[in-house]
C-alpha cells in the first residue's frame, strides 16, 4: 500500500443484515474514492468476540480508521455515503 493510504478495520457480526450492508457500502465507497490506497480488515466478532476489546467495540457494525491518525470510528451500516466521507475526512474528487 502506498504512503498516505487508509487502513480501515470493519467489525461485523457474521452475516447480519447491517454487517453485510456495512461491508458492501464500505467496499463501494473505498473503490470509488480511495481506489488503490486503502486496505480493509473485516473482523468477525461472531468468530472471536474477544477481539472487541482491542478497539472498545460496543455496537456492530463499527468501522475504525486506524490510519491516517487520529483513530476514528463510525458506528452503523455506513449507508449514508456523504456522512461516511466526512467522518473519514475523505474529500470527494
Amino acid at each position: 500500500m502506498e504512503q498516505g493510504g487508509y487502513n480501515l478495520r470493519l467489525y461485523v457480526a457474521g452475516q447480519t443484515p447491517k454487517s453485510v450492508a456495512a461491508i458492501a457500502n464500505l467496499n463501494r465507497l473505498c473503490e470509488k474514492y480511495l481506489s488503490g490506497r486503502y486496505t480493509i480488515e473485516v473482523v468477525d466478532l461472531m468468530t472471536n468476540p474477544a477481539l472487541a476489546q482491542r478497539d472498545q467495540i460496543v455496537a456492530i457494525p463499527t468501522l475504525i480508521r486506524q490510519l491516517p491518525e487520529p483513530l476514528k470510528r463510525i458506528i452503523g451500516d455506513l449507508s449514508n455515503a456523504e456522512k461516511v466521507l466526512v467522518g473519514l475526512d475523505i474529500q470527494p474528487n
Partner: protein
Amino acid sequence: MSALPTDAEATSLPPNLAEETVEAIHKGRVDAIVVHGPGGPQIVMLQGADVPYRVLVERMSDGALILGPDRTILYANRRLGDLAGIGAENLIGMAFGSLFAAGEPLPTENAVTQARLRRHAGTLPVSVWMSPISMGGDAATLVTLTDLSVFVRVEQIAVAERFARSILEQATEAIIVLGPDGRTTHASWVAEQIAAHPPVGCSFSEAFPLDPQSSSHAKTLARFSRESLDVMLATKPFHGVEVKLRRPDLGGRSFLLSAGPLLNDVKESVGAIVTLTEITERKRAEEQQTMLVAELNHRVKNILAVVQAVASQTVRTSQSLAAFNVAFAGRIQALAIAHDILTRTRWIGIGLNELLTAVLAPYRGADGARVSLAGPPVLLPARAVVPLSMAFHELATNASKYGALSQPAGAVQLEWSVANSGLPRVEMIWSEAGGPTVEAGGKRSGFGTALIQRVIKDDLEGTVDLVFAPRGVRSVMSFPLHAIADFADLSGVSAQAS
C-alpha cells in the same frame, strides 16, 4: 476535526461512546451489540431481540428514558414525549432536571419517588423509577415515569361508581342502566328482584318481558317489537306506560315504565336509564276510589228515589200537614239511622241485633223492656240495612200510634231465628200485646203496610204475613240471606248502572 455528523459519527475514543451507541441503536443502524460479561465480550444480536423491546418501549403506557453519565437524555420514548407535551425527539439532549417543575427535588436512583413533570400548561404528577446500568463500560441510567393523574382519575371514577352503586342499592324503584347497545350495565336491587333473568348483560326485553297494562297502553307497546323496544328505550325518552311483568309470581303487580337518556360530560347520549315504578297500590287505591264514587252515586240516586217515594206516599196518606210532618220526619229519620250504620260499618254490613237496637231505640223505653229483642247473632249484608230499617220503623211507628206502644202497659216482642235447612233464611216475628183491641181485618196506615210489604218482598226477596189479631198486631217476616247481594256484587252492579 470537522463538525461531527449526527448520523454516523466519527470520534476519537471514547467520551461520547454510550451516547453514540444509544443513538445508533435508537435509529436502527446497528443490529448487534457487544456485552462485557464475566467470560469476556459476548455478541448480542439486536435483530429479533431488540426490535420487540424497542416496539414495547415505544408503545408502553409509561414514559421511559435513558440518561447519559452527565444526566442528559439520550433516549426518550413516545409516551414521555406525550406526557411532557413536546415530542420525544425534542427531549434528546435535554438535561434530566429540566423535565421537572422548578423547586422539585430531583428523583434519586434505585428508588421510586414522586415528582411533578413540567408541561406547557401546568404540571403532571408522576412517579419516577431510576436504575443505573452500564452501557459499553459507561454509566447510564434507565428511568421510567408513571402518570399518576391516571390513578387519581381511576380513583375518582371508582368513588363515583361506588356512589352510583349505593344509590342503586338503596333505591326503592327498579332502575336499569342500559349501554349504547341496549344491554344492561347496572341494575338496582329491586330491578334484580323482579327480573326474569339476572339483568346485567341482557337486553331490557330479555330481562323484563312485559305485557301491557291496559288496551290503550297495549297500542303503545304494540308499536314496538322486542328489538325495537330495546332500541327505543336505549335511545329516546319514554314516559309513563303502565305495564305488567310477564312473570307468574308478579302477575298482580303493575309498573310504570319510563326511560331517559344517560348523558356523558359533553351531553352525548351513552345509553339510557330505565325505571319501573311499582304502582300496584296506587292502582288499587284508584280502582277503589272509582268504585266508591260509582257506588256513592248509585246509592244517592237510590236514596233520593226512596225519599221521593216516601214523601209522595206520605202526602197521600196524611190527613194534615202536621201529620205529614211527623210521618215524613220519622221515615227520613229511619233512613238516616240506616245510613249512619252503613257509613260507620263502611258499607260492609251489621249485626241484626245492633241494627234493631239503633232503629227501635226511640220506642223501647229507658230499660229497653217495651220492645224486647231475642235471637241468635246474624250478620246482615249492607243491602239489607235500609229495607229492614224502614220496615221496623213502620211497625214501631204504627205500634206507637195505634198499637201496643200507644198504651203504657203495651209491649212488643221481636224474636228471630235462622233456618239452615237448605239456604239460610232469617225468620222474624213481631208480636204486639197489651195495646187496644185490634179490629179483625183492620188496616192501619196504608202506606206503612205497603212499604213493609214492598221492602221485604222486593228488596229482600222475602215474605211478610201481617196479621191484625184482636190482642195485637203480629207480623211474620222471612227472607233469605243468600239472595241479598253482597257489597262487592253491589259495586259491580252500581258501576255498570252508573
